[in-house]
C-alpha cells in the first residue's frame, strides 16, 4: 500500500474514533474476579471485559493481540498489581495506543491500592533464590472477601472519578456491595470457628492463600512447591508428606490451573483430601460471593467440619 493510502486510512480511523459516542464506561479487568467486582459496582453503567480466562493462571497469560484491541477501546483497566500480571500486561498497555490506561494513566487502577493490609510484603533483600516472589506483597488477596470489599470501595471511588455524572451511584453501590461481601465473609468465618485447631491445618500447592488463611483462621503447614514457581522435587514432596503425617493436615488446597498428580498422590498417602478450587470467578455465570463461598464450602467439607 502506498504511503498516501496509509495516511488516508489513518485519518479515517481518527474520524471513526471521534464519532464513537460512548455511553457506558468500558472496563477491562485482568481476571474474572476483578471483572465480577467491577460489574457489581458499576452495574448497568459499565461494560466489563475479563482479559484472561478464569481457568488460566494469571501469572502466565498470552499477550494476544486481540487484547491490545480491547485495551485500545478501554476507559478503565483494572489489574491486581503487585507484579501478578507483570509477564503480560505491560506489553499490552504499551501497544494499546491508549495513554489513559497506561502506567500512571487515569484509567489504570491497581486494585491492591485499595487494601488496608497486604500479606508477605518483602522486608530486607529480595532474592530469586526464594523463588518467583512478589516483593510488594502477595497478590492473591481476592480469595478473602474482606479484601474484595475494600476493592469494591476503591473501584467505586475510581469509577466516580472517571464518570462524575454518576459518581453518587458508584459510591453508594460500592458501599452496599462491600457490605454484602463482608457478610459472606463473616458467615463463613463463623462456620470455620467451630473447627478444632487440628482440623484447621492445610497444605497448599502454591503460596496463593495467606489472605484466605487469615480470613478463615487456618494454618498452612507446607506448600507442595518448595518455593513459589519452582516445581516440586521428590525430596521436598517427601518432607511435605512427613509434615502432613506429623500435623494431621487433612486438606491439600490448590487452584485448578496447577498440575494435580503430586497433590493427588500426597493426599491419598496422607489420608487427606485434595481440594481443587477455581482460581477466578466464572465471570458472567458466577458472582464473587458465590466464588468465595464455593472455595470455603469445599474446604469446610474436606476439613471434616
Amino acid at each position, binding site marked *: *500500500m502506498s504511503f498516501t493510502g496509509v495516511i488516508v486510512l*489513518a485519518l479515517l*480511523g*481518527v474520524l*471513526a*474514533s471521534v464519532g464513537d459516542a460512548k455511553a457506558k464506561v468500558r472496563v477491562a479487568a485482568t481476571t474474572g474476579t476483578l471483572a465480577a467486582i467491577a460489574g457489581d459496582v458499576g452495574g448497568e453503567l459499565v461494560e466489563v471485559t475479563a482479559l*484472561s480466562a478464569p*481457568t488460566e*493462571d494469571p501469572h502466565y497469560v*498470552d*499477550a*494476544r*493481540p*486481540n487484547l*491490545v*484491541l480491547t485495551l485500545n477501546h478501554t476507559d478503565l483497566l483494572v489489574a491486581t*498489581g*503487585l507484579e501478578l500480571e507483570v*509477564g503480560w500486561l505491560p*506489553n499490552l498497555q*504499551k*501497544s494499546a*495506543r491508549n*495513554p489513559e490506561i*497506561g*502506567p*500512571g494513566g*487515569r484509567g489504570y487502577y*491497581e486494585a*491492591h*491500592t*485499595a*487494601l*488496608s*493490609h*497486604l500479606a508477605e*510484603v518483602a522486608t530486607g533483600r*529480595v532474592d*530469586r533464590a526464594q523463588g*518467583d516472589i512478589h516483593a*510488594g*506483597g502477595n497478590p492473591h488477596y481476592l480469595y478473602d472477601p474482606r479484601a474484595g*470489599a475494600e476493592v469494591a*470501595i*476503591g473501584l467505586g*471511588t475510581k469509577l466516580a472519578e472517571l464518570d*462524575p*455524572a454518576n*459518581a*453518587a451511584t*458508584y*459510591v*453508594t453501590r460500592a*458501599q452496599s456491595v*462491600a457490605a454484602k461481601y463482608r457478610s459472606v465473609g463473616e458467615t463463613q468465618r463463623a462456620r470455620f470457628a467451630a473447627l478444632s485447631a487440628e482440623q484447621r491445618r492445610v497444605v497448599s500447592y502454591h503460596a496463593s492463600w495467606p489472605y484466605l488463611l487469615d480470613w478463615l483462621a487456618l494454618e498452612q503447614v507446607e506448600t507442595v512447591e518448595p518455593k513459589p*514457581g*519452582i*516445581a516440586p522435587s521428590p525430596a521436598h514432596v517427601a518432607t511435605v508428606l512427613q509434615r502432613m503425617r506429623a500435623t494431621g493436615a487433612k486438606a491439600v488446597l490448590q487452584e485448578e*490451573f*496447577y498440575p494435580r498428580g503430586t497433590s493427588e498422590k500426597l493426599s491419598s498417602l496422607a489420608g487427606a483430601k485434595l481440594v481443587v478450587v477455581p482460581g477466578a470467578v466464572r465471570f458472567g455465570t458466577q458472582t464473587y460471593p458465590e466464588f468465595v463461598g464455593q472455595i470455603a464450602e469445599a474446604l469446610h467439607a474436606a476439613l471434616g467440619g
Partner: protein
Amino acid sequence: MFSLRVRGRGRTSALGVLCLSSPAWAADAPASAPAAPVSADAPAPTSDAPPPAPPAAAPVSEAEMRALTEALGADAQAVQAGSAPAPAAASGGAKPAAPAAAGNTGGLDLALILDVAGAWFSDDEPLQAGGHDPNHTGFTFQQLELSAGATVDPFFRFDTNIVFGLFGVEVEEAYGSTLALPGNLQVRAGQFLTRFGRLNGTHPHAWSFADQPLVNGRYFGSEGSRGLGAELSWLSPLPWYVELVGSATEAAGECCARSFYGGDDLGVDGVGDLLYTTALKQFFPFTGSASLLWGLSAQFGPNASGNGNRTEIYGTDLYLRFRPVDSSERRAFSWQTEVMHRRRQVPHDVLTDLGGYTQVVANWSPDWETGLRAERVLPLDGDDPELAEPEAKYAAAVTWHPSHFSRLRLQTSVADRGGASDLVYGALLALELVTGTHGAHAF
C-alpha cells in the same frame, strides 16, 4: 565486567530519582489545555449528593484561570503520587496501602541475560549464519544482553538492548516509543530491529532454538534486519487486530542490511537511499485457546552494486498457536513459518532467491519444551556466487526450564550446504540465565 555492572546500577538509581521527580513538570503539561483536566478533576463525590453544578455565567478572569490551572496541576500531581485524600463517603475501612517495595514508580527496569553454549560440529564450516550462533566446536559466548526500559514521561517510553560480546559492545537497540499519539498511531525512533516478519523483531532469548534461522542471516545479516531510523505504526479501528507498520532506516551494514548497501555504505543523497520496511499484521483468535497471527512484510532499498540498483524482499509469516486455557498441565503447541522472496538488481542480471523455515514447538509443561525446525534457502534465477547451491538445515531441540528465569537447551542439527559438500552434523548445549526485571514478551 563487574565494574560495568556496578556503574550500570549507579546510573539506574540516578535515573529512578529523575523519574520520581518528573511528575512535577509532567503534570503541568496537560493543564495548558484546560477543557479536559477540568472535567477530569471534578470535585470528590459524596454519597448523598451528586457533584455540585458549576456556578452560572460569571466570567472567569485571567488571574483566576491561572490560579485554577496551578491548582489543577497540584491536584493531578497528588493523584499521581497516590496521596489524594479519600472521599469521605468511601473511607469505610479502606486506608490506602503503601507497600514499600511496590514497583510501580516508573523506574528503570534492568535485566541481564546471559547466553553461553558448548557445541560440536562435524565440519569447520557449519551452516550457521547468525552473529550469536554457536558456530564452531567448543564453547561460544553467545551474548550478554543488558536490557533496560522505562517510561520516560507521559509521552515516551525508552527501551534499549545493549549486547556485550567477550571483546566488544554493541548497541543492538535503543529507541523511544510514543505513548500518547492520537489516531491510534505510534512512532519508534532510534536504533531498532525492523518488524519484518515474526522472528526478526525479537531477541534470542525469545527464540525456541539456539540459533538464528538461515534465511534471516542470508537476507538481513548476522544480526537480523535493524538500523537507525524511524517507524510509524497504526492500529486500525477494524473489529479484528490489524496493524500497519512502516519504517525508514539506514540501508548500510553487513550485519543488518546485507542485501542492501551492506558493508559498502554509499551514503544518503535522497529518500531513495533509505531502506523502507512495511508490514501488515493481523490476528485471528479462533477460540480462547487457538489463534493465528499472520503477517505480510516487504523491504525496499538500494544495493551496493551501483547504477541505482535496488533490492526488494517480500515475506509472509504465520504463527498458529494452540494453548488450552483450561489445562492444568499448561501445555501449548505452536507452528511458525516464514517465507521470503528476494530480488536484487545487479549489473547485467537480476538475482532472485527464496528462503524460509518452518518450525513446530510443543510445551509439554511449564518445564519442558521440544521443537523441530526445517529450513531452506534456494537460488531461483541469476548467477549469485554467494548462493550458488540450495542450502537446507534441519534441527531438533529439547529445552528444560528449571524456573521461569533459566533454561538449558540441547539442540542437534544436520545441514546440507548444497552441491558436493558433505552434510554437517551438529550438537549443542546452550544455557540461558535471566536476572533483573525483564519486561513482558510480545505474543
